[in-house]
């Protein structure tokens, strides 16, 4: 991993649930399974369905990004009262131009990725659109870390 540790909850914040999910690069056969597992967990925890949809869409896009571009990653799920946070840190090539990567339609996808229905340059903007909190940091040759969260009335 790139040494970028997930943030510790602030004092007074109680983490109701947390779990880490490994994702392997190029593992197209399982692309979507982490998002599906997290969705089941969020349902069981009684998170509002609108929030689950936003998070699941982001998790699926983020998972596919790892499969398409990175070597491996860990998706860390943290459920707090009124907020679900995701920290996805990958080991991979990193992103040279973050502004460009955030532009809708910009993509470095290969034909195989497009055959899977991805790689249209919508992933990162889509995650941002579905999140109340979003940040991305990347170091070329090391990896990329995404942090996003969806908030709701507890």
């Amino acid at each position, binding site marked *: 991993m790139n040494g970028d540790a997930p943030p510790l909850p602030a004092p007074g914040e109680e983490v109701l649930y947390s779990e880490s999910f490994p994702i392997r690069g190029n593992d197209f056969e399982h692309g*979507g*399974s982490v998002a599906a597992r997290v969705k089941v967990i969020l349902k069981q925890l009684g998170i509002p369905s609108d929030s689950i949809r936003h998070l699941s869409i982001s998790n699926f896009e983020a998972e596919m990004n790892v499969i398409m571009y990175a070597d491996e990653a860990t998706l860390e799920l943290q459920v707090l009262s009124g907020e679900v946070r995701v920290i996805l840190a990958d080991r991979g090539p990193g992103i040279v131009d973050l502004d460009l990567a955030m532009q809708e339609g910009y993509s470095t996808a290969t034909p195989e990725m497009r055959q899977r229905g*991805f790689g249209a340059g919508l992933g990162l903007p889509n995650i941002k659109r579905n999140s109340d909190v979003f940040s991305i940091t990347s170091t070329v040759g090391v990896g990329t870390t995404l942090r996003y969260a969806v908030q709701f009335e507890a």
Partner: protein
Amino acid sequence: MTMRLREVADLLGCQVVTGEEHLDRLEVDACFAADLMSDVLAFSRAGALLITGLASLQAAHTADVADLAGVLFVSGKRPAPAVVELACENSIPLLSTTLSMFEACGRLFGAGLGSAVRR
């Protein structure tokens, strides 16, 4: 205007790949047609029928995470067993028609279904 998935299947002469038991229960009022799952994830709204020529595992995952009512595969596309299994686990009906994307969309639009684009 809403249609039960059973009516959709009848209108388009669909083969029911999985989810036969849900067809009389599930109703749709709108569809989203795309081969690009990122488009579906970005722009569709929950409860829509996905119309696609992409019969991959990612199509079934997309229907699951985006809370879609079901998936209609066009041009005679048939999903692999792993895709069917995933859809079955998540109670997502899969239909398959030999009609093209254009004709399937045209018939459903003509029957009164709308576009499931998220505002």
